[in-house]
Every structure is written in structure tokens, then in C-alpha cells.
């Protein structure tokens, strides 16, 4: 019954004269930079970019990815940069259907950084790695002059082995497929925004930084080959990931606004600051597209994992409007959910 949706991401051209902050914010500008400038030169023409690459070396299939971490403040309720650096790479691999096995890491340190701050982050990395079941096997340090970096930047590169029975392919996404979200959106981004203190807002919120691998494994156990696509909605939020899906698959995405879980503090901050929770970064959630016949079992499996209780089926894949994410309201109206242009900025208008 369903129609196969062709997988031909449109070409992007990068014409911006210089790098702006928006190019790092995970939204449209970031995508233009990567797809319009970096990928064509380094990777050549190819399909849609995903969170990790899969390569075969000496007959063994491996997944590999890398990620850099820049966050102010370094420590925030629920986590810190060290924890993010481990979980972020583990998650990029997990949503590519890969279990992270080993990580290597690079520290870029600003001269003057208190050693105790560094040590705390190294320990946070060790703890997060132990929790995520990944070994850190090497690394590098660089120190730059005071003022040339903001305290510390971390890069982690992870290698792992593909989970058995998963073949993710955006080209396999079909009309009627169901979208699963692992839990409430926006906790990390709002926690960071509040932790910076400029806005003088307080809420009982913590970052959701964690490894999503246990939930992904449960999902794989329940739906295996009928998981079509996964993504962790970090910078740019769930809206950005879903727009990438819609664009890469030339399909429509329909989400039911009321089914997207949002914690109170996130909702309050978003109402106050005029932000959309769908645009706010997450560090411990994932989105998956699953064949409809497996959706109920997949949801139960994810919800059964500790920390997965908040998972929901939030919408489905449609044929039209192609390339577009629509949010349906409970009263039968709809709006387009667009990608963000840069970082979400509080507004007063």
C-alpha cells in the first residue's frame, strides 16, 4: 500500500562570505556549511549526511564518528562538558545503529584554566564512559593562549560495531511509518540557557545528557530491521532533525503537537522567552522512524528501559507536503515547523 519515497537530497550551495555563529548552531546555516562547502570537497557527491559513517576495514564493518564540545558554563545542572563529550559521541553512534566501543579524545585548553576544573572534567568523562560501557583509549592535549579559547574545548572520536539486525536507510522510509521520540524535549538547551544566568530565570530542570544506547538497543530488539531512520536531536532540536528527515526523504512529517512531551520548566521558559521547545537542544533523546506494525511494540520496549518512560509516538510520515514538517493541533489546525536559522534567541515581541 505504501509508496517508496525516493532518496535524493537536493544540492546545497554555500555562498556566505564569512563564518558566523549561526553556522555552528545546528540549523539551516550549519547544514548549508557542511553540505555546501565541506562535504562536497572532502566526501565528494553522495547521499544524505548522517550522525556517523560506516566503513569496512579488513573485512570488518565499523561505525565511526567525531564531535566537538563547546559549552558555557562548563558545569550545569545534570551534567558537564566532560559528560557531554562522552555521551554525545556514544549517541551519534547509537542512532547510527552502532554500539560505541572505544573513544579517543582531544582537549583544547586555555592557559590559565584551573587544574581542578580540568581534573573534574576528566573524571566526569571517565564516569560517563563507564556508565555508557565505552573505553577511552587515547587522546591529545593542546594549550592555547589565554583569551584564544573559552576555558576548554573537547573533541571525542568514537568507533564501534554495528548492532545486529539494523539497517538504517532514509531511502526505506515509507508513507505511514511512525515517529517515536524517546522523551521530553528541550531539557538540555533550556538548562544551559538558564545556567548562564543572563536571563535571571530559575527552574528545577536538569540537562538530559545520557547515553541513549540502552533505549536504542531495546528498540532494535523490538523492531530491528523495520527501524528505518534514527537521529539524536541535539543543536537545532527535534524540529531540525525532523526537517532533515523530511528533506532527505522527500516526504512529509506530521507530528501531533500535544503528543510531544515537554517538562513544565521547559514549557514555562519557552512561553516566557518566546521559544519553541521543538527548536531546543537535547543531549539524551533520539527520534526514530519505524514501520507502523512494529510501533506499539517498539514504544513498549523503549518505555521499559529505565529513563525511557517518557517515550511517545508523536506522528507519522506522509507523502505530502513533501519536504515539510507539519504540527497538528488538537483542534484540527496545522502549522509548519521550520528549521531554526541560528541559535534560539529569547524574544520580547
Amino acid at each position, binding site marked *: 500500500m505504501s509508496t517508496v519515497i525516493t532518496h535524493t537530497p537536493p544540492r546545497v550551495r554555500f555562498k556566505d562570505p564569512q563564518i558566523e555563529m549561526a553556522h555552528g548552531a545546528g540549523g539551516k546555516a550549519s547544514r548549508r556549511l557542511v553540505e555546501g562547502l565541506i562535504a562536497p570537497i572532502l566526501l565528494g557527491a553522495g547521499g544524505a549526511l548522517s550522525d556517523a559513517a560506516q566503513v569496512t576495514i579488513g573485512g570488518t564493518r565499523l561505525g565511526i564518528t567525531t564531535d566537538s564540545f563547546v559549552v558555557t558554563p562548563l558545569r550545569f545542572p545534570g551534567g558537564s562538558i566532560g559528560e557531554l563529550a562522552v555521551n554525545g559521541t556514544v549517541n551519534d553512534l547509537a542512532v547510527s545503529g552502532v554500539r560505541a566501543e572505544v573513544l579517543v579524545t582531544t582537549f583544547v585548553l586555555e592557559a590559565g584554566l584551573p587544574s581542578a576544573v580540568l581534573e573534574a572534567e576528566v573524571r566526569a568523562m571517565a564516569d560517563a564512559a563507564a556508565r555508557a560501557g565505552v573505553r577511552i583509549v587515547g587522546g591529545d592535549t593542546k594549550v592555547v593562549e589565554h583569551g584564544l579559547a573559552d576555558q576548554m574545548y573537547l573533541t571525542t572520536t568514537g568507533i564501534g560495531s554495528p548492532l545486529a539486525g539494523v539497517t538504517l536507510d532514509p531511502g526505506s522510509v515509507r508513507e505511514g511509518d511512525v515517529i517515536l521520540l524517546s522523551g521530553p524535549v528541550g531539557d538540555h538547551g533550556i538548562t544551559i540557557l538558564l545556567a548562564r544566568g543572563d*536571563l*535571571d*530565570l*530559575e*527552574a*528545577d*530542570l536538569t540537562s538530559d545528557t545520557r547515553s541513549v544506547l540502552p533505549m536504542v538497543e531495546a528498540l532494535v530488539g523490538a523492531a530491528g530491521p523495520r527501524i528505518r531512520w534514527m537521529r539524536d536531536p541535539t543543536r537545532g532540536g527535534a524540529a531540525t532533525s525532523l526537517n532533515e528527515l523530511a528533506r532527505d526523504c522527500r516526504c512529509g512529517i506530521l507530528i501531533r503537537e500535544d503528543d510531544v512531551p515537554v*517538562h*513544565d*520548566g521547559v*514549557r*514555562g*521558559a519557552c*512561553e*516566557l522567552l*518566546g521559544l519553541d521547545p521543538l527548536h531546543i537542544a537535547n543531549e539524551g533523546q533520539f527520534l526514530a522512524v519505524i514501520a507502523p506494525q512494529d510501533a506499539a511494540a517498539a514504544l513498549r520496549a523503549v518505555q521499559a528501559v529505565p529513563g525511557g518512560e517518557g517515550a511517545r509516538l508523536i506522528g507519522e510520515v506522509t507523502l505530502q507536503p513533501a519536504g515539510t514538517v507539519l504540527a497538528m493541533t488538537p483542534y484540527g489546525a496545522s502549522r509548519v515547523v521550520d528549521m531554526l536559522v541560528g541559535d534560539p534567541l529569547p*524574544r*520580547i*515581541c
Partner: protein
Amino acid sequence: MCLAIPGQIVEVVPGAVAGAVVEVVGVRRRIDLGLLLDDMPVAGDWVLIHVGFAMSKISENDAREQMELLRMLGECEAAVEEVAGYGLGDEDDGRGQAS
């Protein structure tokens, strides 16, 4: 043009400058009450917040009255249709239409 949302006063902060702590679905912020000097709110009151200032006290009564009006919207129409459905409307050939 102006994003303003309701919040509840948790605490009026004493001092030279009238201020309060408000809560908006689990988010708290210190706001300024300087624009409500003529009608100072107390803890528990709801106010409309814009750029860190309370702009206006929210009237529970007016909100309730509005909800009642909204609940009645279309009700008369529904009742008329129901009556018409019983075929009673046909009996009346326009004479008894006092309204």
C-alpha cells in the same frame, strides 16, 4: 507585538524598589512591580509579565466571565438545530418569533 504572559506572584520582595518573584509553569524570576504602584498585587495574584515588569493584574472574574461566554458560543445554535430536528420549528409559521 509584545510577548507577555501570565505568572503568579510567589512572593512580594520588600525594599525601596517594588519587586516580586513570579512563577510561570515552574520557572521563577524576579520582576518589577513599578508599573502597578496604583494597585499593588499581593502573593497569589496573577499578573501579566513583559520584559521583567508586571504590566497588569489579571482579573479572575473577567476570565471566568469570558470562559462562560465562550462555553455558550454556539450553544443557542445547537439548541435551535436540536429543536428543528424534532420538527417543532415547522409548527411555527413565523408568528411567535419574539426574541
